[in-house]
């Protein structure tokens, strides 16, 4: 991993995140959040985790960002006035950051002495289908339930 590339990507990612937190217009903030998502994907690529990077782009840029944008569009009617600095938001984000850091520091990471083996899509598939098949099925069930729930909500509206 080249330090120069990491530095550039990290600066872009952080700038995107900062802009997302501070820009007055919500749509601009949402679009800057996409830059941060892309930066994180680039860092995954830099680490050699291509699959995770691609899924990051696919899910976050392709789905989550569109969802956020649509939510903003469908909920705001008139021109919104600039909201002041929100200390509550800062508190929540620091709490999330602290929780994540606590979890990361406490996790015993495997040693990378002899170099990390290249993670292929095939290997991920094998692990998902063999070792983690039950969690995978549970997530699938949850998502199906969510899909059906969404359909039911739409049907109610129509009646």
């Amino acid at each position, binding site marked *: 991993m080249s330090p120069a590339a990491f530095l550039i990507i990290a600066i872009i990612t952080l700038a995107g995140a900062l802009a997302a937190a501070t820009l007055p217009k919500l*749509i*601009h903030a949402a*679009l800057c959040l*996409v830059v941060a998502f892309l930066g994180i994907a680039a860092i995954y690529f830099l680490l050699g985790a*291509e*699959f995770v990077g*691609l*899924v990051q*782009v*696919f899910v976050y*840029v*392709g*789905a989550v*960002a*569109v969802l956020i*944008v*649509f939510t903003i*569009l469908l909920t705001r009617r008139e021109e919104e006035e600039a909201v002041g600095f929100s200390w509550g938001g800062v508190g929540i984000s620091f709490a999330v950051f602290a929780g994540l850091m606590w979890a990361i520091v406490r996790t015993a990471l495997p040693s990378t002495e002899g170099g990390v083996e290249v993670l*292929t*899509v*095939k290997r991920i598939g094998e692990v998902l289908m063999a070792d983690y098949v039950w969690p995978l099925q549970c997530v699938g069930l949850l998502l199906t339930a969510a899909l059906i729930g969404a359909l039911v909500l739409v049907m109610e509206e129509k009646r």
Partner: protein
Amino acid sequence: MSARRSKTKHKVSSGAQASRLLSFDPPAETAVLHRFRPCFKKPGSLFFIAVLVALDQIFVSAKQWLLTLFSGAPDWITQIASGLISISGMLGVFLGLFALMSVMERKILARIQNRYGPNRVGPFGLLQPVADGIKLLIKEDIVPLRADKVVHFLAPIMVAAPTILALAVIPYGRNMTLFTIDGGILFFFAVGSATELAVFMAGWGSNNKFSMLGAMRAIAQMVSYELPLLVTVLPVVMVVGSLTPDAIVAAQSGYLLGLVPHWFAFTPWGAAAFLLFFVSGLVESNRTPFDVPEGESEIVAGHMTEYSGFKYATFFLAEYFGMFAVSGLAVTLFLGGWHAPIAALQFVPSYAWFFGKLCLLLFVFVWLRGTLPRMRVDHVMNFAWKFMLPMSFVCLFAAAIWHYQARGLAAWLWSLGIVVAAYLGLSQVLQTGKRFAPRTYRFAE
């Protein structure tokens, strides 16, 4: 087997001799040579074989020759040069194809509508794209006063960039994949999913009700059809067991009796998946009959309403590049990529086959545009969720059956039965409540 292998080896070595004659070093897949054996049985045909291989690999060796100019340079310069050569080659080819396609589309549409089409600029009107390009370049670039300037400016770039990136993972010929990545198919779709956001940016940045409506329609339709598009790719990925386009093309090599190629489009599930994929691709590139986002009779030009000059041309380019990308992926997934349709024609360079198939699919795009009227918005959505999505899941199921029945004739019939039964059942279910009575006229007659 051993006899065959020794023969192959012999061929390879003789091929190497022949290529030394031409001072040409065939890269990687030298075993390719023995494929030409059926066409040339005489020993004196060595020279022809070498010429054919050289023709097949001409672009690969051209790139290698160009890279020798950088032989003394440090590693990173060679890498950047290699990337730039590939990118400029790809962009050159596809910009040329874009120009050709724009004039050919107008010609074909004119032919369908019984008129002449462009025939004034150059021979047969073939220089029309040059005139169009100059016109678009010198047009005034208008930005609405109340537009969001930055978003409005970035949107055309954001629309065009993903389509160009998506083109990079498609194998155009033997050893001719520009960007080899472990999850190439996933890369294609990950990159492609960024277009939705770009279309939204165009719609929102223009600050125009038509633009916004068009963008909303485009996103709704692209999100809906992305599901069938992805699910129809799954059977191929499942059968091949790889997400790499090269592996998918390699899995479709070989012929039945030297006549019927092992393309996935010739299996029942593959044929159904191919049709579903093509229709979804039609929607993703916002082409007729699914061009509701830019329906000019309703909302001017949708998200492109407030764009002019070269920015408009960029949207146009993105639409065509999107068509190329989707058709290219369809060729890779279902039509055997760069493989020849019959064994005897394998001597034709591989990229010629790829671009031939690509042009065939592009012709179908134009043909549909010339013959079908625009669909209504709600019909488009209903079709996606009620027909396309269930059918694509059926394809997945049929492909699984085909695979576990050992891929023989029985498997072929089983999967055919499943696809046909599902199609008939689904059409029965969807027909309920729709009674076609004789049309009555209240005011006419």
